[in-house]
């Protein structure tokens, strides 16, 4: 065994003898660090001829690399067992607390816990629940659907075949899953319409609240992650006047009496005729103010009569059934109602903000 081999064996012994991370760190210097025999031999290289120096230098370097590898493997082992040891040492039986927690009527009752102030539901949840309640009272059910969608439900069944220019209206996030651009984060809650109609026959009276995604840079009025409430009614004899009437009823219930909904022509591939709907400004009551940029109206969402192409995609006879649909922004309603200037505050979750509502 030459000197280098001896030095390596010594280092190896030191490393494997360490039984904790702390011990291991303590022997690093002597094993292959500054205080090691290898380091001393490296210092002696200077006195050698060039060829010998190169040869020996390389041997020393290799020996060092071997020890470094051993060291890091040992460090990993020890940190795992350190963690296990700590887990053992700090182990708590969490089930004790569950059985210790007195409840009214239990054998330990009589020892009251001090009351705590209730927490607060998020503003967006509060608005969403209020909307759900209004529509349930109008005879709608509350439907839900997945946030990750396929192309069929988000686009194609909604009368947007591949390459349809209207797809450009939505800045879509795609997932690296399946074929390229085949799996999307839903850009609206409208795919729930498709899922509802695929799953059963009319009549359908439903709303679908949920999270949606568009590739918008966040600003005071846009978030790339936001919440919509979709409505869908499909039945015999449903007309646009029912759409307007239902919107009026909703507006009344949510904003209070005296507010009206207004329809303006617009375009969506999945409705025909299509409309934007505005409501009387809730700040000024229609006189014009900053919230409504002086118009007396605030735009809330898009709506229209379900396009026959959508009915055909899901196998509903458009001659027998007709229907309407709309989508509105829950976060925008929440911001509007609380005069919130910057919608990004909804995502900060600052406790001082959350507990205001």
């Amino acid at each position, binding site marked *: 065994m030459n000197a280098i081999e001896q030095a390596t064996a010594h280092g190896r012994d030191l490393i494997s003898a360490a039984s904790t991370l702390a011990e291991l760190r303590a022997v690093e210097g002597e094993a292959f660090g500054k205080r090691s025999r290898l380091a001393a031999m490296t210092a002696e290289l200077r006195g050698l001829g060039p060829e010998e120096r190169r040869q020996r230098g390389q041997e020393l370097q290799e020996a060092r690399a071997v020890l470094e590898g051993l060291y890091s493997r040992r460090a990993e082992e020890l940190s795992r067992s350190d963690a296990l040891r700590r*887990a053992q040492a*700090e182990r*708590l*039986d*969490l*089930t*004790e*607390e569950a059985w210790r*927690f007195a409840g009214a009527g*239990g*054998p*330990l009752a009589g020892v009251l816990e001090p009351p705590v102030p*209730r*927490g*607060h539901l*998020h503003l967006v*949840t509060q608005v969403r*629940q209020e909307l*759900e309640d209004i529509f*349930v009272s109008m*005879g709608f059910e509350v439907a839900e*659907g*997945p*946030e*990750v969608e*396929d192309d069929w439900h988000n686009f194609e069944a909604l009368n947007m075949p591949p390459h349809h*220019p*209207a797809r450009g209206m939505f800045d879509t996030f*795609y*997932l690296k*899953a*399946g074929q390229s651009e085949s*799996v999307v984060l839903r850009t609206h809650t409208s795919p729930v319409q498709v*899922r509802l109609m695929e799953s059963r026959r009319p009549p359908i*009276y439903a709303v679908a609240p949920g*999270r949606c995604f568009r590739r918008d840079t966040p600003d005071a009025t846009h978030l*790339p*992650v936001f919440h919509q409430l979709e409505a869908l*009614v499909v039945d015999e004899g449903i*007309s*646009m*006047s*029912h759409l*307007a*009437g*239902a919107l009026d*009823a909703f507006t009344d219930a949510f904003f209070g009496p005296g507010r009206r909904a207004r*329809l303006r*022509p*617009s*375009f969506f591939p999945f409705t*025909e*005729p*299509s409309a934007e709907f505005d409501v009387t400004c809730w700040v000024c009551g229609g006189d014009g103010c900053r919230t409504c940029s002086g118009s007396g109206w605030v735009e809330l969402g898009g709506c229209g009569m379900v396009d*026959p192409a959508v009915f055909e995609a899901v196998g509903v006879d458009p001659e027998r059934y*007709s229907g309407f649909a709309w989508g509105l922004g829950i976060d925008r309603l929440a911001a509007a109602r609380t005069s919130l200037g910057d919608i990004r505050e909804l*995502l900060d*979750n600052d406790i001082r903000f*959350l*507990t205001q509502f």
Partner: protein
Amino acid sequence: MRVPLSWLRDFTPVEAAPQDVARALSFLGLVVEGTEEVGPPWPGVVVARVLETRAHPAADRIQLVDVDAGNGEALQICCGAFNMKAGDLVPLATLGTVMPNGLEIARRKMRGEWSNGMLCSAPELGLGHEHAQKGIYILPPDLVAGSPLASALGLGADVVFDIEIGPNRPDCFSIAGVARDLAAAMRLPFSLPRPSPGAVVPEVAAADVRIDPAAQDLCRRFTGTVVENVGAAAVPPLVSHRLALAGMRAISGVVDASNYVMLELGQPNHPYDLDVLGGGGLVVRRAEPGEALVTLDGVARRLEPSDLVIADASGAPVGVAGIMGGSVAEMGPATATVLLEVANFDPLAVSATGKRLGLHTEARTRFERGVDIELALLAIERFVELLGPHVRRGPTTDVGRGAPVQPPLRLRPSRVNMLLGTELSGEECRALLAPLGFVSEADGEDAFSVRVPSWRPDCTREVDLVEEVARIHGYDRIPRRMPSRPVAATRLSAYQRSRRELRDALVGTGASEAWTNTFVATADMVATGLGPDVALELENPLDQSQSLLRTSLLPGLLRAVRFNRERQAGAIALFELGNVFCRAEAVPAAPGPVPGAGTIPGVQEWEQVALVVAGEGAGSQWVVRAFEVLRRSLQLDSLGLHRQDQDPSPGPGALVNTGAFHPGRVAAVIADSSPIGLVGQLAPEVASRYELNGPVGAFVVDLAPLLGARRPAPPALAVSRYPATDLDLAFVVDDGVQAQDLAKTLAGAAGDLLGGLALFDVWRGETLGAGRRSLAFRLRLRAGERTLTEADVSRVMAAVVQAAADGHGAVLRQA
């Protein structure tokens, strides 16, 4: 699109106030996003008559010009141009005028001579940098000296509407199209321009334009006209001015005329310098594989056979069809003869090529929505007309005409009324459609056969006509009524009701609800001790900090907690309910019930609830209690906690989140013997990565199995009216024995007489030996129908002590 009101008036005599016009447009679906009032151009610039030109005594690059600015007196101006003579009318920028480029005109001395204003060239007035007229702009001789230049040239104040055009209205990407809609809504007449260009000059050659047979499916029509002597052509100032109002710069007569025609009629077109076109003609063909072309913006573009190119007659590409011309045959100041291309391309092909090249142009915008195939000849005539009387034009060559003629649509007024809830007569429907260009003829009882005008390719079905009727009739005139469905009781689903109760229970613990981003970064996951490789990745994230879909609610909540702690929030508990996602192969099947989730290949999506608590008093005890609150409020009777390391087949939530927790201070939430979540203290290194000191408590549980553990509504149990006896028993057990297991054993052994069971003391001491502790339970015993006897109590005591000893090696600790 920017639409000047005066331009609309070229087509329809609208007299309404601008705000009423804006409203009418908005109620047609042409949303006016802004209304801008614009004063007359060139305030301060007047018409002046040149009285005399004199040499400057000290400079030969400038001369002295005496002009009459209307008051009959001679006003001396120093001028660097020499193209005017006595008697000419010229534009004079008077003192104080601010020029379009921002320069303010002041009285100043030039080489010792006063200049009392500035005579203006066409480019200085914004009439185009390559305007045909060089030097000072010589005005028509019939103007009156002293009058403002704008009014002298027929330009006044204007109102510009900024209109958002939806993708469904190709015809409205033009002033004429907007005017047609407006006229229909305001019940005004409408007419297209009838250009009177110069006659065809026989000596000018017919344009050589062809469609390659292999491109006939993508090019529906190709027309061209040669126009000579365009070097001296200038468009009227009104044209340049309107281009400026519409947001386009004036450049030269030919380019301005081309742009004006596109904006006015919606027909994109392209003038090529004929003298540099190889072979003197154009052919539209599919690109060769790998063919390259430098477009007008100076960028080299690689093309594919699905792209259409315009090539010259020698085969060299000179433009990407319907999107952008090439730089080779670009118009320049030296251009004398142009070949104007006016074509009609397949919308999908233009769209695909434009998307691949990332080129957004006015031409593409129009072609990909569909340009009226009948516009081509009108556009050519209008173009030639705008260039004025000095140009010489040849005959127009017109090839292709391959667009299918749309068959007439059947419109049933009964269907109109059914869908709109109106009571319109057939005649009313016909009259509402007519001004838009739809021609209706009776087709049997209660139906019309409606011919769709060529500019409305968007109308292909009866329902599209219904929308047109509704638009012109007015959406606000549609009556309102509630749907009269048969009365049916509705309510939230059991799952939705439970979810609300869960939120309420959590709020009752003092925690508040957060909603956090669905997107997380790899770094967030690593910091939380979660494996990033199970996460789904976005193909096109906004930025790398939002590139993964969250696999757990913990990273978002931890960030929110840190955000609050950084703002001196003190102790804080936040919870969230939301969807989380994993690669399908990485976790066991998602526990539902997001309807439809699980049908997307490669994706698991499910709903989760999580809570994080930090600050003084936080830790595993707090979260266990919070969890107990929700377990008991929702009567999740079958749920229990269990030491995590003994559990088989964890659900996805328990599996994904293991690394986030302190391995000795975590319990699994067990439903149906399978872990559905974790409760406990987060690993100290996770907490410190979020800059949180002290223990941080958390739970994360998959929602569907959690709510699925609800006890069905139980039958009422009679409450005993007899007194109870409490039996306090302390057992010494090994640390390996969970309180939960011992309690269950005790409850089982106590049998029917057990009315309640709780742990009231945990004690360790040297006398017990290391690794052992005493758990003191209170058993409340009672019978339903009688008072307990001492024999009952001793029997229960004997049974539970025996069971504890047998099951767990527990030793009763003598008081």
